[in-house]
């Protein structure tokens, strides 16, 4: 058993190297040996697939292997027990898509696939080819389905979840899943730091602009499949609310309907959001020349936006609606309870909202 676990280490390292630039040092014998290893592991998987005890031991070991290799290699692909069953296919796909692979080796690999392609009688082992076909299919299927989703659908009565496009929703769920997996690692550090580092990494990723990132965080908080014991969602929420500036960027980047749903689900968020809106409204000044409220320093925080946000909150679920109404009325009373336009921002808000 111990030797199997050791070998598992070796396999994970093998696959990691296959995706890195170290393959440029490989030669045909190495490739041959690599595939032999992969065949051995597939065989192993076949033997232990139904044996739950061994299965679990291997899966656990993989978790810790993943963690250590993650720190070693820059961009690492996490391995699961299922991957062991497709080891050859995974190896092949990793090698073929690695730009650092020397040309002679990629030629050999392509030639290797040739008989599988020609074989129509099904005698040869087509699992390598099937694995590649499977990858290509999924990519194409997601494109086809995205066309199908673009078909005319009225947005009038769409539930909030459909406001998140499937890509963002998936990303959110994957982030959550990653978090939960990392937290389960035996040697994981303090959980807050985990969340911080992950989100920091995602934020720094230059390709993602801040609005996309905010939507992903929203997707994390709204994810459907979450195991409540892990508390990953709560951590994410805590992270969001810990930094005021961050919260502001978040609220500006995410559609209002989503925000009101978040307010419904998480009382802490509701308070923070209302507080943010209050602060925003308070910092507005009435401009007598054009009869409008303006924000002194940031022109993008305009009146219309503010009104829209309050409107979504009031049209939301009952709890949220009541909380907002109470807050607004209280603030109006504090300010002197005026009914005339132009003096208190709260009065004007309530007037504008009543008009809608």
């Amino acid at each position, binding site marked *: 058993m111990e030797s199997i676990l050791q070998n598992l280490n070796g396999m994970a390292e093998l696959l990691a190297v296959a995706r890195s630039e170290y393959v440029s040092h490989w030669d045909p014998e190495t490739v041959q040996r690599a595939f032999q290893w992969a065949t051995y592991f597939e065989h192993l998987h076949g033997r232990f697939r139904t044996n739950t005890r061994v299965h679990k031991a291997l899966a656990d070991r993989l978790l810790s292997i993943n963690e250590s290799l993650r720190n070693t290699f820059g961009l690492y692909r996490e391995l699961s027990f299922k991957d062991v069953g497709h080891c050859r296919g995974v190896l092949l*796909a990793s090698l073929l*898509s690695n730009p650092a692979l020397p040309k002679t080796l990629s030629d050999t690999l392509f030639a290797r696939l040739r008989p599988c392609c*020609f074989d129509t009688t099904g005698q040869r082992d087509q699992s390598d080819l099937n694995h590649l076909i499977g990858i290509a299919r999924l990519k*194409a299927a997601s494109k*086809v389905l995205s066309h199908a989703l673009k078909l005319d*659908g009225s947005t009038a009565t769409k539930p909030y979840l459909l406001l998140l496009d499937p890509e963002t929703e*998936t990303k959110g769920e994957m982030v959550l899943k990653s978090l939960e997996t990392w937290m389960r690692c035996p040697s994981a550090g303090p959980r807050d730091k985990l969340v911080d580092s992950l989100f920091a990494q*995602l934020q720094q990723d230059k390709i993602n602009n801040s609005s996309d990132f905010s939507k992903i965080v929203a997707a994390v908080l709204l994810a459907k499949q979450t195991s409540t014991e892990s508390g990953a969602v709560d951590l994410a929420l805590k992270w969001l609310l810990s930094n005021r500036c961050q919260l502001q960027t978040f609220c500006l980047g995410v559609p209002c309907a989503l925000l009101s749903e978040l307010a419904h689900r998480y009382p802490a968020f509701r308070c923070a959001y209302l507080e943010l809106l209050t602060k925003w409204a308070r910092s507005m000044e009435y401009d007598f020349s054009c009869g409008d409220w303006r924000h002194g320093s940031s022109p993008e925080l305009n009146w219309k936006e503010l009104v829209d946000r309050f409107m979504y909150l009031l049209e939301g679920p009952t709890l949220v609606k009541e909380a907002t109404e109470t807050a607004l009325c209280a603030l109006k009373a504090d300010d002197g309870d005026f009914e005339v336009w132009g003096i208190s921002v709260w009065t004007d808000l309530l007037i504008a909202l009543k008009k809608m």
Partner: protein
Amino acid sequence: MAQQSTIPAFCLEYWQNKAVEWGQATTLASQQDVCLHLQQLKDFLQEIFQKLQHMNTTAAIKTFPLVGQLLGRLCWNPCVVADEESQRTLLQCLWCLYSAEPQNAIELKANDWIQSLIRHLISDSETETENNSFIQILGYTSEEYHSNVVKCMVSSLVTELRESCCNGIHMPKRFTPDRLHSLSVFCIPLVTCLEAAPLIEALLTCCESGSGETLSADFLKAVGTALLQKKIGLQETVIIGLWLRYLPSLENVTLHLIETVVSTPHFSPQEMESLINDSLLPKASARHPHIFMIVDTIFRNILLESDGYLLVQTLMQMFTRSFIQALLFGEAQDKPPLKAFFPHNPQPLLMALLKHPSDVPSQVWPQHLLCIVETLKVAVEDKDNGGSQRGLFENWFLLVHCGDWVDIAAQQLIASKAETSEALLWLLAFYHHPNNENQQRTKLLAVARKVCDHLKVLFSSTTLSLSHLQTSLDLAEANSEESGSKYMFNQLFLNFLLFSAGGQVIAKDAVHLMTHGNLLNGISAMLAGAEHRLNSYGLMDYKAHRTLKLLQEHLKRKA
């Protein structure tokens, strides 16, 4: 859509133009066009593959200069790549153009180009870098990402569909018939995709009623084909629903069953039974008389075209048995009456014939057989009430469905009393000659009576020799111009050999005489049927078993 029928089978230029058109247009309609042409494209790619297989790269490029462009364009079309079969054929064609040892510059270039195409298909392409880094930070592969995205899209579409269908007439439906139709077209390449299975099922269960068919016929056809090739699995109710709304799928399943049975003549009865039950036809027929009628019509046509081929008859009998069982043991609500399935047969006859021999105690068989013969005679000779040609045919057909009773009659005949024998003989004669226009039935009856009488005399004698049987055998031989009569006589002799006191000794030689060394298959099948009956009706006849085994061994050695 009309162009589809006029496309020449092999037209590289046509498909090249199509591929260019699909690549340039970005409208939803053009994407749908791809899906609608998918089956024809698959056939075309197969043909190209057959041709390319035998050429090396240079020759291929000389003969089909445009093929490389075409294949390349198709690789960039997600609707083509999403379908497993078309992707596989596409890859096969590409590999035909790949040279293991490139001889010239063209082949080298082709190799490089093919490698880049494959890479594009399986790895993260340049346009997806934004997803790239995100996924890599988390440690996933793009394959897992796409799998999750597909699952997410599928589940949101399924939720929308379910909500749309559950709404009564009062709430506005989110899915208009047009949108449903378009969605079903987009699902054509995804029919065999495992992650999209919930969506396929939701589409098929949604919109059951309504005016006309909203789903695309090509989609329904694709689902039917995939089911037949066992590439996907659906729930039974969904499959039956598909058959009800798209008849060609039902016809294909029935024909496939018949073909399988006919092309594999050595099915054991248990294997055939499970084959029939797996096809879901008995269950579906029991719930929907409409389906039963169609399946039955197909069986009938095949039976008539094949001139009463024995395997088809056996298939019909086993199907009827499974069907009746499904009818009896199916869910209690809305069970159609027997009349709905057999509108042309009188009720008493239905009740008598549709009871399977295994459900009737063997002591009661003689009475039951008499009952069958009487009701059958009444039905057939009743000139007023549909006793026409049609009525005769329908009743004969019913008898074919329940041919087990005819086999039992043959078994019981030799040992039966005089009054019963006449009736049983009539039944056997009717089975092989329903039409008595030229008095064939009467003639056969006369000869059979003689043979039967002779055999009865010999039945209990323990010492038999072949010469005792000679007269009967000769008589039978003289009157066996038609295969039906021959079959009947063979049945009589075989049953005699199995069940008589002295039959075992002369069995082998008698069989040899009966068949003159040929037509062994027919005898083997009869023996197999006899064995099945002995085993399933619990008749503890040790001697008959022994004789049976003896004969089977003998025939196996001869074959």
